[in-house]
């Protein structure tokens, strides 16, 4: 962090390399007396040009390539690519229920490991006043160890059908290369149940023992809203302010801007403005669809926090992530308990020319993909809208509000509080950097 104090009372607070986030970002805050002049969450993650080099590759290669956009949520990219490409190939309706179910199982594993990593290793140190979980472990070894155990289980779930947890190899367009081995299902189940019980305790611990800064805002929350079940792989896209569109209509509902201080594009809802995706948005819009294990925990968490839903404070993303982790663990337990080896683990696909758009709920929020293919199934156009770029405007607005309260706070303290706020969003900066075809998207509004 560096701070400059000049005669005119302008002070600049800059955290040049944000810690405990995935990817490379910086915080830039300029205050003039008691006025907040400028707030920027800068993203300088180098561009990697995925959408550009996907052109000309076979649709079958796409899930493995897009997985490499982010090592923290590769399953989210694989799921977005698979669903969108199954639509492009015209086979989406033929995907077996058992395949959909195993996709939820795989995704549950990623939610668990990603949420627990963020909650306890990256975010909790902010609440408890440590610079890292490594320092925090000296005083709270028990919490860190319990979290590591659950995180490990999340990874084991992904590996059980994906082969490994970072860039799983088991996923293909059309399903899975091989079904889950029933022996593995049986072996994993007791640990899933044990972690589920412990996670319920941990959620109550964070709800009861942490102090949540009070930063209420009137957000527009956006997430998938399936008719049945908590959002993950399927569903219409809805918001609390009236947005209600089919998956394929998402591009018409939003606009993206390329701003100078970011290699990520800021997304906004057309004619309205910024919105929030992620655990808080999903929970506020879909609380009644939580698994019973998470649902029975919810009133206790609300009591402990003294807050009924909807939660309109980004700091409450921590307990929201906790409830979602309980949901994911309970879902995985159910799937394992009732598991039988399916007749087939993937459907056959004949390449064709087509277009398909689909978003799924990455741990950090909606991650939307669209692909166009030629007759041979080669990609001719690709678009990916990841969660962090959708949240970036909202994060900056939150920061502005918070900064207004920090005019009398010393620089180091102020920087810490801003960082804490940024980490509410679990920003995945590696993901947020992607590139769109503005020239060919005539409908796009350009900033």
């Amino acid at each position: 962090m560096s701070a400059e104090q000049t005669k005119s009372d302008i002070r600049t607070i800059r955290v040049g390399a944000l810690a405990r986030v995935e990817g490379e970002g910086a915080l830039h805050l300029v205050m003039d007396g008691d006025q907040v002049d400028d707030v920027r969450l800068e993203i300088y993650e180098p561009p990697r040009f995925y959408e550009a080099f996907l052109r000309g590759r076979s649709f079958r290669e796409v899930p493995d390539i897009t997985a490499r956009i982010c090592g923290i949520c590769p399953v989210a990219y694989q799921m977005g690519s698979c669903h969108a490409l199954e639509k492009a190939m015209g086979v989406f309706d033929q995907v077996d229920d058992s395949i959909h179910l195993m996709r939820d199982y795989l995704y549950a594993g990623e939610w668990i490991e990603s949420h627990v990593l963020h909650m306890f290793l990256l975010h909790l140190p902010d609440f408890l006043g440590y610079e890292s979980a490594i320092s925090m472990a000296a005083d709270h070894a028990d919490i860190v160890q319990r979290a590591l155990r659950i995180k490990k289980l999340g990874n084991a779930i992904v590996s059980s059908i994906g082969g490994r947890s970072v860039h799983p190899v088991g996923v293909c367009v059309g399903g899975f290369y091989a079904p889950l081995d029933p022996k593995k299902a049986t072996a994993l189940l007791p640990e899933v149940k044990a972690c589920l019980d412990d996670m319920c305790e941990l959620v109550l611990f964070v709800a009861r023992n942490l102090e949540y800064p009070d930063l209420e805002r009137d957000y527009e929350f956006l997430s998938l809203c399936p008719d049945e079940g908590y959002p993950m792989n399927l569903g219409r896209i809805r918001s609390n302010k009236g947005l209600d569109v089919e998956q394929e209509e998402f591009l018409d509902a939003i606009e993206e801007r390329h701003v100078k201080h970011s290699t990520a594009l800021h997304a906004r809802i057309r004619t309205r403005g910024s919105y929030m995706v992620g655990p808080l948005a999903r929970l506020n819009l879909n609380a009644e669809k939580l698994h019973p294990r998470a649902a029975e925990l919810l009133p206790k968490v609300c009591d402990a926090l003294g807050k009924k839903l909807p939660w309109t404070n980004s700091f409450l993303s921590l307990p929201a992530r906790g409830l979602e982790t309980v949901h994911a663990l309970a879902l995985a337990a159910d799937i394992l308990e009732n598991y039988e080896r399916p007749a087939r683990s993937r459907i056959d696909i004949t390449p064709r020319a087509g277009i398909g758009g689909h978003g799924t709920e990455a741990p950090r929020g909606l991650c939307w993909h669209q692909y166009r293919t030629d007759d041979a199934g080669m990609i001719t156009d690709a678009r990916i809208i990841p969660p962090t770029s959708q949240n970036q405007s909202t994060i900056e607005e939150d920061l502005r509000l918070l900064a207004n309260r920090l005019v009398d706070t010393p620089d180091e303290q102020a920087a810490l509080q801003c960082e804490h706020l940024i980490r509410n969003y679990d920003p995945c900066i590696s993901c947020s950097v992607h590139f769109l075809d503005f020239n060919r998207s005539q409908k796009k509004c350009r900033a």
Partner: protein
Amino acid sequence: MMSTPSTTSAQETNAATAVRPKLAVYKFSSCDGCQLSLLNLEDELLALANAVEIAFFLEARRAVVPPPYDVGLVEGSISTPEEAERIQQVRRDCRTLITIGACATSGGIQALKNWGDTEEFVRYVYAHPEYIDTLDTATPIAAHVFVDFELRGCPVNERQLLELITAHLAGRRPNIPSHSVCIECKRKGYPCVLVSQAEPCLGPVTHAGCGALCPSCSRACYGCFGPMEHPNVESLGSWLNERQARGHRELSHMFRSFNGYLEPFKQASESHERRANQV
């Protein structure tokens, strides 16, 4: 322009063991997956944090202990002018420099842009190309500075990563075999994907380390650990072309993925591309 985070909160909790070797973890153009492999060592993580001083690891901690460092782990490839400069300083700051993963060792998936027109790529994707500062290529770390050891994989295998760090601490050679995925696959007794499933498996030419993960899922290896030592890529390419009727375009793409910019995968992909273009 880049400043490091504050060191004032650097309360080393294990100040007593001040002589521990200092470990730094760096990120360049990458997905963070290889760094994450370190955090995925759930059972060993806290012990590791005691055995070494984690002196610089932005993804995991805010505190920074100033250089020099005993070991630097580098994730990611060099794809911007800023990175090309930064890696020089990183080399000066680390006694031993180890690259972790395909990005750092071969350029990674983003090296696909090396065969494209970078300017067109920027225009294809950006409203304001003038905001973007990127090099024409994404290149491995060894193309810029001397590297002491390269760990393969996209991502690296976390057991291998642990072995590498442990061996370094013990002052012995790491036990990282350099044979092919095929050998691992045979040892585990998986049915051969190339022969019995007639799938285009790169196992015969790919560096071991994953434990033959893809064959364990009835899938052909796609080479994410990159070429083994002295692979016979030419003969595998011809075999796949003749026996499985794989076209040169497909073969070119197979070699040109996560390690496509590393020889001899690079040469193989270019040679198949030329043949594809002749037809």
